[in-house]
């Protein structure tokens, strides 16, 4: 008998691989351009302000080189404005997520994804490159463009999760999605590399390169992406909703991978290809927004994710600043160290996804991980001034916070959008993903503001207390689901014992 992993993988074709890679890199490119913006902030604020001088010394001449740009009086004001742009972006992104999920379930996912990628690439080009070439520095123009960018970027996430949900069934979803949700972290790394390699030519070229690469990604997606196995005549993965693996006879099949079974699988595929030669069945109808909100688990997971994304994004935005501020480490060192949080998140998401696949339940894994996360936050807040220990603690925190966060935003969103209550008759994947991630983004946007407020008023220690409380909050929201899942598990086990 071949090892189970090969059977596990044999259900996948090259179409699966391409769909995985295309959706993965779509989001990588998107997150890379987001990271570019945070990495060129220093250059942009230098461009927007005149040179600072001591009061006594005369201004530098010639004026056209040192004094001519007066969008802001000094870099502090420019930094405030850039922070405001971040908040504007997150809010419009959140609003856009609610809308674009609904659109994604009604229009072809490929078109929406391509539109989101190319559209936001064009807006970023105008924001960063065109305004610089034409020397138009205007606060209102920047704000309008960044709102537009948030709306366009929000089209991407629900679409890529929906495409992934179409291709990868519940059997291996936790693991595949855990691996796949590394895309945000990979995007951060790619963005940092791209930005730092062209920044010396001017910040406008950092925007130019990332936006052109993103546009090219949109074109590739347009020509290459299959949004669903149905498009090439493969059947959808057997989806039996949220029932556990043990009692699910259908999803046992690929795990066993006997030759008969494989034959049966291929037979089934051929059959479905033949079936598709006949006129296809009527396309499933999309659910409404309210209806999607009322699906079991959607509201709870959305609120839990709002708390969790707040903590997760606060780490993303504030960690390098905290490290250089609190420990006095150089900015480059702090940047390098903060990568460990991402690494922990990637591993955490994959491992926890794998565990939840085998258990057939997600909520217990999440709750346990979050409970440990509260402890690791306490530990991290007391980290000594040593980069190695700090990196280890950071990776641990990333494992327990980033992992669940990645899982809710991808695997669980896909579970929720393809659950039993819909009976496969309705398109809800993108809508549900949009609701979960949109609520999360509102939490993240609020967190941006709250963290700076708490930090300036009460100090960093209270920021960590705030994080701990928020993590606890997400456990509270998961609790009803945890309770019902544990009860179901208990019932199944008892039924199994009775059979024996």
């Amino acid at each position, binding site marked *: 008998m071949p090892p189970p992993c090969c059977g596990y993988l044999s259900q996948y074709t090259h179409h699966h691989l391409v769909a995985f890679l295309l959706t993965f890199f779509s989001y990588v490119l998107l997150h890379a351009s987001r990271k570019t913006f945070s990495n060129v902030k220093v250059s942009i604020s230098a461009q927007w302000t005149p040179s600072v001088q001591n009061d006594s010394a005369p201004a530098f001449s010639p004026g056209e080189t*040192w004094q001519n740009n007066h969008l802001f009086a000094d870099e502090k004001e420019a930094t405030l404005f850039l922070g405001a742009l971040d908040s504007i972006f997150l809010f419009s992104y959140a609003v856009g997520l609610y809308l674009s999920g609904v659109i994604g379930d009604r229009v072809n996912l490929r078109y929406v994804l391509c539109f989101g990628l190319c559209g936001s690439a064009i807006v970023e080009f105008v924001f960063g490159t065109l305004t610089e*070439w034409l020397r138009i520095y205007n606060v209102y123009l920047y704000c309008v463009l960044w709102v537009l960018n948030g709306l366009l970027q929000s089209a991407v996430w629900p679409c890529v999760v929906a495409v992934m949900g179409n291709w990868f069934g519940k059997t291996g979803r936790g693991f595949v999605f855990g691996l796949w949700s590394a895309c945000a972290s990979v995007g951060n790394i790619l963005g940092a590399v791209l930005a730092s390699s062209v920044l010396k*030519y*001017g910040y406008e070229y950092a925007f130019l390169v990332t936006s052109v690469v993103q546009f090219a990604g949109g*074109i590739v997606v347009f020509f290459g992406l*299959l949004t669903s196995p149905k*498009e090439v005549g493969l059947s959808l993965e057997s989806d039996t909703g949220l029932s556990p693996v043990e009692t699910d006879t259908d999803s046992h099949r690929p795990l066993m991978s006997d030759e008969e079974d494989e034959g049966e699988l291929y037979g089934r595929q051929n059959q479905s290809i033949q079936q*598709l030669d006949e006129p296809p069945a009527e396309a499933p109808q999309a659910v409404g927004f309210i209806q999607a909100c009322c699906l079991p688990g959607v509201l709870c997971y959305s609120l839990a994710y709002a708390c969790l994304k707040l903590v997760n994004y606060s780490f993303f935005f504030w960690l390098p600043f905290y490290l250089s501020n609190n420990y006095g480490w150089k900015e480059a060192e702090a940047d390098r160290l903060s990568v460990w949080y991402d690494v922990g998140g990637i591993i955490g998401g994959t491992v926890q996804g794998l565990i939840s696949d085998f258990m057939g339940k997600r909520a217990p894994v999440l709750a346990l991980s979050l409970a440990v996360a509260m402890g690791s936050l306490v530990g991290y807040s007391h980290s000594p001034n040593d980069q190695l220990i700090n990196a280890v603690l950071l990776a641990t925190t990333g494992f327990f916070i980033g992992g669940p966060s990645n899982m809710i935003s991808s695997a669980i969103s896909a579970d929720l959008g393809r659950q039993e209550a819909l009976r496969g008759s309705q398109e809800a994947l993108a809508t549900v993903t949009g609701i979960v991630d949109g609520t999360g983004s509102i939490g993240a946007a609020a967190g941006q503001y709250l963290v700076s407020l708490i930090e300036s008023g009460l100090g960093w220690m209270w920021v960590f207390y705030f994080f701990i409380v928020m993590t606890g909050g997400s456990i509270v929201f998961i609790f009803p689901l945890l309770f019902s899942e544990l009860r179901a598990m208990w019932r199944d086990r008892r039924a199994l014992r009775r059979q024996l």
Partner: protein
Amino acid sequence: MKAGCSQRKLEVFVFIFNLCFYASCQVNKLQICRLCSGTVPNATEVGHFCFKSAGTIDGRCCLSNYNTTDPEHIIGLDLSNCSLVHVEDLQGASTAVIIDLSHNPIVNISDTTFQGFIDLIYMILPEDIVCPGGNTSWDKVSVKDGNRVCQGQKNICNQTGQLSTNCPENSLCAPYGPGFFECSCADYYHGYKCLRKGEFPALQVFGPLGASTVVISFLLWVTQRRKAKSL
């Protein structure tokens, strides 16, 4: 492509700007030489200087004969005994080596009046007027015959040609008139605040990118979407 286009536009704009600016300079120069009646007297310092350096006297100015690009290159300016109360715009004479403003009831001179007067090495002022940029900007300041004489402009930059602490990153300090310095971008640096280095290799970046986009799109279309059915 767009970069080139916008840059060309910018060049045209700068060219037009220069034309206008140059024309206004010409007018300014003549006005300076006619600020007061008469010509440069032979007996004064400026007269001696002009004779020694074989210049041409035009009104109150001494023009250089050796400068072929600019026929009105002022090397000396003598505005002594002109009843000047305010000295405002002398920028047309920024190439002057010697300036005489003695015997004028001047109240005070703004610091920035002599900004950009790089070649100025000898100045005669009424006694109660301090040398522009203060005494520290000159090698020697003396009072002679009721006039203040400022001699030998000091270089405010510690050492020309080296990255100076006076100037921000990526720029070099250069003298820019008495008490002034200029920060011009160091080699390879350019743009606002000298933040940019080198030219962006557009072809090397976008050529391979465009080519690989086309190839990948084609390959994926052939392997993935060619047989796709619309749902």
